[in-house]
């Protein structure tokens, strides 16, 4: 492509709907994956925390899923679920599990024992203790896990373009097929911007949720 600039801005100006659509799809796939991952990981982590014998099998399974190469996983799923959003989400959710389970577990394990003792001694039930004390105190560590999972997922969603699920990967893919650098670079840059913005947004969300974690005072 001699003479072709890296980004032809006129193309960008002419295709706002296409670019915006890809960005929106990318965001949607990411959000669904992280929410789905949380929906599975939180209960699993709570179970692993409460019944320590289940911790090893739970983290083992999540670890095994995590080690499967992403493209291979999508390809293996196609005979079962076809070229569908379900296929991509099964894979994407699967990859969040290890990070989210581990961080949630670490967050729950990090609740100081004296806090648990006080909660029990004041007559909180196990469920009240979990919901009112342990999970809120674990929030900073859980959100740290969500941030890692989100950034990872933003990267993985570009791969799902290969099974026809759109997103910024689709822009890059058509760019490669048509030997048109603009689409490749727009897709690549926007996925980086999306990852950074999502990470920053989650950090702000965590700060808003946990004002207590930022106070500095006399004590520990």
């Amino acid at each position: 492509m001699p003479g072709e600039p890296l980004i032809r801005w006129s193309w960008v100006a002419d295709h706002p709907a296409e670019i915006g659509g890809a960005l929106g799809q990318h965001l949607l796939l990411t959000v669904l994956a992280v929410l789905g991952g949380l929906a599975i990981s939180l209960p699993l982590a709570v179970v692993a925390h409460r019944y320590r014998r289940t911790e090893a099998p739970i983290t083992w399974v999540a670890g095994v899923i995590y080690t499967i190469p992403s493209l291979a996983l999508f390809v293996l799923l196609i005979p079962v679920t076809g070229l569908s959003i379900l296929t991509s989400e099964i894979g994407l959710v699967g990859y969040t599990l290890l990070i989210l389970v581990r961080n949630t577990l670490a967050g729950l394990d990090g609740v100081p024992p004296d806090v648990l003792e006080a909660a029990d001694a004041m007559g909180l039930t196990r469920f009240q203790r979990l919901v009112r004390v342990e999970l809120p105190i674990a929030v900073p560590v859980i959100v740290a896990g969500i941030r890692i999972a989100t950034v990872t997922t933003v990267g993985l969603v570009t791969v799902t373009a290969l099974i026809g699920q759109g997103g910024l990967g689709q822009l890059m893919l058509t760019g490669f097929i048509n030997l048109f650098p603009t689409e490749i670079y727009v897709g690549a840059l926007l996925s980086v911007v999306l990852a950074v913005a999502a990470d920053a947004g989650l950090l702000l969300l965590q700060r808003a949720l946990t004002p207590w974690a930022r106070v500095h005072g006399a004590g520990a």
Partner: protein
Amino acid sequence: MRGNTLRGTALSPTDAGTSPRSRRAATVALEHVSKRFGDHVEDQPAVDDLDLFIPAGATCVLVGPSGCGKTTTLRMVNRLIEPSGGRILIDGEPIAGRDPTELRRGIGYVIQQVGLFPHQTIAENVEVVPRLLGWPAARRRERVEELLRLVGLDPARHLRRYPAELSGGERQRVGVARALAADPPLLLMDEPFGAVDPIVRARLQEELLRLQRELGKTILFVTHDIDEAILMGDLVAVMRQGGTLAQFAPPAELLAHPASDFVARFVGADRALKRLTLRRVGELAPAPVTIAVAGEPLGAARARGGPGAPGHLLLVDHEGRALGWVDARGLPDDRPADPTTARPPAPLLEAETTLRDALSILLDAAGSPGIVVDDTGRPTGLLTVEAITAALQDGNGPGGTGEDAPPPAGSRPTGG
């Protein structure tokens, strides 16, 4: 009555309101209580056949070396640990049949590390139990402010802060406020002041004693510090390794008559001095002293002193405050009492001074008698080392603690 807002709580029917002054207290009885932890390597019981009865409104201190089962004992009372044998009764009712969470909501609990919820404000921390009990928000808020003031914290300053913003002493005050929130008739305290520095610790001890005089709760208090046990307890249960009871007695009796060598060693070789900390100068009758007002004729002072008037007169100013001793021997009756000849006064002792401090002051003054003064600084008489020694001999004399029953909590003297 609060009954309609309490869903199945452990509060007694005598409860008359939410005031911190409602003096509700429970009796606690331990009958042949033992605890054996299953995976104990040495196969030694943590608590062995323990019998205790704590009357309503008394502070009972469990004290002993580490591994004596005192914390285990405490935690069995709110069923954080289940006994292996025996039974525990609160107000005569066995707790084994009670729902543990319901039981615990009616028992205040204070621990060394406080265990405040870091993600909640001070107000939210204090109202945990009232919230569990379903109190309406307005009542909770009122109660929180009342409690913070009770433990010496300014609600305006502290309500919205987080535990991490408080000092260790402030956090422990919040811990006490939290334990008192639902006005429980029983408080369990496990080394509550063990993690704060000695100065803050002494102040918190003082304040708990003051609070206890006001509230009259039944308190079960665990410490490894015999001085704290003697200061805080109406009753002291000395425990030894293996979870057995070495002695259960009021502090004065424990110090005067240790039941065994173990107890004697545990309370320390200075137990006579410790007994002196239990009594105050004001409890002893001071010896009479002859007073001369500056400028008046010596004869007038001698007349007040009667025929046995000593040669030394205590010179006071016109306000009645001691100036010093005047050696009037051989001086004529018409000689005015001359302030310039007064030797510096003997040490002054206030009614609130403990006998231990008084003895120290007198020893420091080379054994000369101390002048007992009232709150306005006017002398009321003399106290000598011999009088203090004599007071020690009549162990359970006036102001001392009786042999069997502890005094009602409200009658305890203030510490130091």
